[in-house]
């Protein structure tokens, strides 16, 4: 049992588990953000709950950060190890004949997502942590009203940020187009449901990023 995570299959399994967790988180993040389009009040209330409820802040948030950091570090570690397994490259290698671009370039799409996450943390997470735990303002209010919706809309005023976010979500879609089904294969789920799951995976991989892009564009053009 102890050696499981030092083996190639164990590492695949660990990558898949962290991927499942992140995909569930992504769905939850999208579900909250889309409220900002349809119901600003609901968005404010849910944001305040997520930002102040102790279990979210001190239990789920550290697990999420661990999940993100683990997924990235393990991804880079595996990439380095995999590169060592072929010291001499082919003079001609027709990768497109047998695999998708997405599956061969997970490290690149993942790398760009990492850059996006750093920017996203600087934009939203660090100011939020500063307000709540350094300034000590847990009220969530600004001029007597919840601040979350207006803060979100302010962030999407500059076109360069909207463009950057859209680009980040394109890389997220590319990553998920391979990653969603790859995670199921890694935990040994390849059966009569696999074709259906592949279809659902494509819907998820394109639908969620497109949804996030829609939210960013909506706030930019309606501000």
């Amino acid at each position, binding site marked *: 049992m102890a050696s499981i995570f030092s083996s190639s299959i164990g590492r695949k399994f660990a990558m898949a588990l962290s991927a499942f967790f992140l995909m569930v988180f992504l769905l939850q993040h999208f579900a909250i953000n889309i409220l900002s389009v349809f119901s600003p009040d609901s968005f404010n209330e849910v944001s305040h709950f997520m930002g102040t409820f102790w279990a979210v802040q001190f239990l789920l948030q550290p697990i999420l950060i661990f999940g993100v950091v683990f997924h990235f570090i393990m991804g880079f570690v595996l990439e380095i190890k995999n590169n060592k397994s072929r*010291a001499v490259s082919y003079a001609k290698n027709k990768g497109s004949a047998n695999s998708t671009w997405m*599956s*061969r370039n997970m490290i690149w799409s993942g790398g760009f997502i990492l850059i996006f996450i750093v920017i996203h943390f600087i934009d939203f997470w660090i100011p939020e942590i500063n307000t709540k735990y350094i300034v000590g303002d847990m009220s969530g209010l600004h001029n007597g009203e919840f601040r979350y919706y207006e803060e979100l809309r302010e962030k999407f005023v500059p076109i360069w940020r909207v463009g950057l976010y859209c680009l980040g979500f394109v890389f997220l879609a590319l990553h998920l187009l391979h990653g969603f089904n790859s995670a199921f294969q890694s935990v040994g789920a390849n059966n009569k449901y696999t074709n259906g799951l592949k279809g659902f995976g494509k819907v998820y991989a394109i639908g969620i990023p497109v949804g996030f892009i829609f939210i960013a564009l909506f706030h930019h053009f309606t501000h």
Partner: protein
Amino acid sequence: MNLTLKIWRQKGANDKGKIVDYAVSEVSPDMSFLEMLDVLNQDLIEKGEEPVAFDHDCREGICGMCSMFVNGQAHGPDSMVTVCQLHMRSFNDGDTIYIEPWRATAFPVIKDLIVDRTAFDRIQHAGGFISVNTSGNTQDANAIPIEKANADAAFDAATCIGCGACVASCKNSSAMLFVSAKVSQFALLPQGQVEATDRVLNMVKQMDEEGFGNCTNTGACEVECPKGISLENIARMNREYLKASLKG
């Protein structure tokens, strides 16, 4: 057909190799790829040059020896064939064809297009077998009823010829399709259950020690496999491994 061949030439395991250009003419479209190389070698011998070393044995797609990466694909552009089953009609007059050995740290080049695939043998030795009493009291295998679906899947897995195309095609040089086929052919049958736990743990351990990369599920191995070994086998091996790890 007149062709330009760009072939990897390497004198020995410790020498530095390079791509060398050769022009071959009057190649018949009905020749197999290996016959075309035979013609080239005859030409080189007559000129007093060193012929190109390449592996071959059965020349009917069973031995898995002809380990060549042809024009960027394991065993060339056709699907479900080895190089000996690849015919020159798959190419056009005037084509330039790259011919390289399998590239993987675990498959070092011995000479020219010949690689050392004994890493696969060591993985097999680690657990790719069942222990049965062969002293004369062997039970007839057909006496044990086996579900048709399982028998078919085990047979499909057992068609793996260990050619190494999966490793050669995988961007990570992963051997998981090969190992999973060898694990599956026993895991699906009652005869393989006795040593199931040790088998998968030992074979995966040996695979990792040989320096093969991690599988990232690109599926290139399945596409390039001349025997059509399915990715379902890798999923099965993953399940077997996790089950065995929890037991062991």
